[in-house]
């Protein structure tokens, strides 16, 4: 389904992505982990054609999407949705319009100019918002929503595109743990229920372990790990992040702990006063 062949991206002298290759044969949930500057974002941006690759091929169903130009490249972009860390919505427009932006590729510039959307598409946008549990926000401006809600609007826009592949660039990096869980659960549901491939850059190991079918570890632009979440031991993680023995993933974990005893003790102490 997806074959990445010797893809590189060079900025000046430095290779941000250095000759990476891998295959994905089914609509899996793939996580890419690695420290900042490892080339994760650059890779996703190349897949969406936001950034051009220096060399290599990305084959999707036998077609090299890196070679597409102009209208063909835009058609590919509409088939391969992208979700950003900072949501990248239009803040001054309402939520439903932001979702409708997902089908811009099918609409002419003139139709966009006069804000003409077919009734069927408006209904579909509202349906998607309902599915993601934010239907009541539809008429509000995007900037009025919380981060977690904005990210769900971004996911709704992605779903409006009806894409084969959804790319998510650090989708939960600017969210609190509760919203992070809602967003990741949503992405997983889309992956399982709709059979759409999801490729997500993640920066917490526990998220990668919990949601991914497959984890790819990158370091300095190269793939240094490619396996199942079970294989992702602390030792492997130290290799990926280039950390020493002092590395402790619990310290940076953003998951909500199952053990709530300390919270309860705190609550009781507060109530006792």
């Amino acid at each position, binding site marked *: 389904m997806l074959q990445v062949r010797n893809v590189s991206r060079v900025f000046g002298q430095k290779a941000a992505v250095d000759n990476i290759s891998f295959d994905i044969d089914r609509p899996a949930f793939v996580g890419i982990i690695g420290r900042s500057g490892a080339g994760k974002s650059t890779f996703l941006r190349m897949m*969406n054609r*936001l950034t051009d690759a220096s060399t290599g091929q990305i084959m999707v169903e036998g077609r090299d999407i890196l070679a597409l130009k102009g209208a063909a*490249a*835009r*058609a*590919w*972009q*509409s088939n391969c*949705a*992208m979700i*950003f860390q*900072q*949501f*990248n*919505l*239009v*803040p*001054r*427009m309402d939520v439903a319009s932001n979702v409708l*932006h*997902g*089908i*811009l*590729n099918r*609409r002419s*510039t003139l139709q*966009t*100019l006069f804000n003409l959307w077919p009734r069927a598409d408006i209904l579909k946008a509202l349906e998607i918002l309902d599915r993601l549990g934010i239907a009541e926000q539809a008429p509000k401006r995007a900037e009025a929503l919380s981060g977690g809600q904005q990210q769900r609007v*971004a996911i709704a*826009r992605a779903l409006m*595109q009806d894409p084969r592949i959804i790319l998510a660039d650090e989708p939960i990096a600017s969210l609190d743990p509760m919203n992070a869980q809602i967003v990741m659960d949503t992405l997983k549901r889309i992956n399982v229920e709709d059979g759409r491939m999801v490729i997500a850059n993640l920066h917490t190991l526990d998220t990668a372990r919990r949601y991914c079918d497959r984890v790819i570890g990158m370091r300095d632009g190269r793939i240094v790990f490619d396996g199942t979440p079970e294989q992702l031991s602390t030792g492997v993680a130290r290799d990926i992040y280039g950390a020493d023995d002092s590395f402790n993933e619990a310290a940076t974990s953003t998951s909500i702990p199952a053990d709530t005893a300390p919270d309860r003790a705190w609550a009781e102490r507060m109530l006792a006063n």
Partner: protein
Amino acid sequence: MVDIAFGPQGDKGPGPTNGRDAYLDLVRRRRMYGGILLVLFVALMASGFRLAESRNAGGFIDGLPQVFAFPSEVISEAWAKRAEVPGLIWAHVPSLIETINIAAVSTLAGGLAAMVLALLSTRGLSRWPRLTGVFRRMMDAFRAVPEIVIALVLIYLLGGGPVPAVIAIALHTSGALGKLFSEVAENADLKPVEGLTSVGATWGQKMWLGIIPQVAPNWISYALLRFEINVRASAILGFVGEGGIGHDLKLAMQWGQGRYDEVVAIFLLLFLTIVAIDRLSDRAREKLVRGR
């Protein structure tokens, strides 16, 4: 750095006493530069005045009383016929409307052209990034040529009337507004544009949905300011045969004595209009930039 400044050998580093002397030195130097500049300025002004005076036909000092003679003549005559002034004001309203129409149409046309030119000449937004320089120079050229020059050429080609005025003012407006619009667009947040790129939107769609909503309040505010300026420009173009209130003013002035009440009426009308537009656009701009 740190260990020298705070080290035991205080004589080496810029200690507190050294720092004070150095600062006083700096102040003295600044004052000296300021004084030299002031002397230069006064000398240049004085020598320039002498030159201008010698080139002047009548001489500045001799002509000075006459500068006030004309207005006093106009005003005294208008005062004598003050009862007719309100009627004359009313009589000139149609030509005022023509002048305002010329200004409005040319602001609209020039503003629309400026939108496109501004986006095409803004780095990071342009449809053709290599051509930003070309579009910038184009705006410079539009801005550099005064309206009255374009209008005179167009009157020669197209004949008198409002159309040459509209074209002339619109051209100048597109250059002037384009530069201001482009400066606003430069500071626009690019995240929405990136989001729209990722769904496969065309350049026009990205600009319309990603940039225009962000910059609209500032752009409209600049366009209103330009509208005020264009009302004046349109009145001035009346002098060279574009119709409107400027044409009436020119006729009244040429007539000379006996028609000065009309001159005053037109001036009053123009003044009141500009004050009204100024107040209105001030309020609208305040609402646009701050209200939202």
